[in-house]
């Protein structure tokens, strides 16, 4: 009698189908995703039932942190550079093409204009470190009218925030202003920003307040 031969079976699993699925998923994620914008400060926005989505273009986002430091971001890189030039001109500040390129890459910016060229010369990691430093007075767009100085000289002599917004509105008339702030920010801090926007020079009275969707919102 012949022995029953145990057939040697290959353990080879066909991964082609699996690969197909993963590639499909990957394509889905790549096409539908928008990357998280890198922000110099972490804010937790308050919740609301409003379901209006934030517009993707023509947006000037004003980021206000708990201490009242202001950062700005614009979605259009070209307009951003134009705005930078318009703000810098009255101060006689010029930039090298390398600095402009660095500025183009910045997601949100917020340093006094006098300090901008030096800031743009720093490598990206150093820039981040600089912005993270809470004690640093050279972080945030100055939004006070008075003169601010520190040991290294004058930081700002006037309200640069006002200049930035005015220049941005000059560059793009359809610009919408969005305010993003942490929910624990005290009201006077936000009020100060809103008052500047409402003031005689800017005359802006429509804003978008960035919020997150409130859970279980339907009544």
């Amino acid at each position, binding site marked *: 009698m012949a022995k029953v031969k145990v057939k040697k079976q290959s353990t080879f699993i066909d991964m082609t189908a699996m690969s197909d699925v993963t590639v499909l998923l*990957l394509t889905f994620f790549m096409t539908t995703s928008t990357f998280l914008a890198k922000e110099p400060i972490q804010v937790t926005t308050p919740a609301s039932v409003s379901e209006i989505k934030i517009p993707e273009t023509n947006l000037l986002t004003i980021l206000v942190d708990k201490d009242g430091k202001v950062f700005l971001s614009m979605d259009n890189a070209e307009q951003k550079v134009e705005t930078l030039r318009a703000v810098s001109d009255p101060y006689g500040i010029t930039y090298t093409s390398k600095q402009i390129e660095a500025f183009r890459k910045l997601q949100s910016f917020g340093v006094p204009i006098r300090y901008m060229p030096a800031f743009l010369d720093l490598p990206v990691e150093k820039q981040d470190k600089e912005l993270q430093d809470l004690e640093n007075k050279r972080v945030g767009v100055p939004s006070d009218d008075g003169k601010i100085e520190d040991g290294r000289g004058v930081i700002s002599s006037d309200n640069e925030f006002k200049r930035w917004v005015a220049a941005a509105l000059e560059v793009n008339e359809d610009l919408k202003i969005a305010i993003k702030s942490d929910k624990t920010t005290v009201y006077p801090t936000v009020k100060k920003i809103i008052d500047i926007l409402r003031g005689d020079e800017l005359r802006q009275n429509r804003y978008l307040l960035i919020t997150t969707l409130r859970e279980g919102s339907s009544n």
Partner: protein
Amino acid sequence: MAEIQQDEKGEGGKNKQKKQHLRVDFTPMVDMNMLLITFFMFCTTLLKPQTMNINMPMKDENMTKEEKTKIKESGAVTLLLGENDELYYYLGIPKDQSTYDDSTYLVTSSYGPDGIRKLLLEKNTGTYEKIQELKAHLKEGVIVDSVFRAKTKEVHEAAKEIAPTVMIKPTELSTYENMVDALDEMLICNIGAYAIIDLTEGDRFFLYQRTGNKEYLTEEQRTELGQK
């Protein structure tokens, strides 16, 4: 990692060309894809943040006082946003000293369904239901967005005489979240007319009376109080 399996049948045959099965191992490819997917999942925001539209009244010095106080007294609701998420409200417009002496004039309330929302819904009955209906139509796709907006405007216009006008007055001790919460209540209750405005000295006095916290008062009021 391609593996070539030789067909065993062909053994011992003549110089026939061997049949070859070409099989490619996809396992590393799947591994890599999975890694990429994980990366994209962590780095993306599928949910876009919401926004809330807000129109602030124009800061116009030329506006006369009469124009500023056009608000009907019967419909006026004033919300005072205090410290530690406290919320106070009063109805109407305070007239003279007697209102300031009346301790029941200022009512302590809270954010959320049991607090201020009850009052606002009650005040806004009729309008609320109509807009709620429109909202449902919008969701079902019966009407488009522009029609919805025009119709809500109509409803608000029609109810102008009876609808409440809400004045939100955040104090220096309140937070940004309080302000957004208050605005949120306006959205929930479908209030047509509301605005964020500064506190009057009277409002500050109300809050001081209720809480005993001098921080609600202005500098002048504090010195005046000290002199007394």
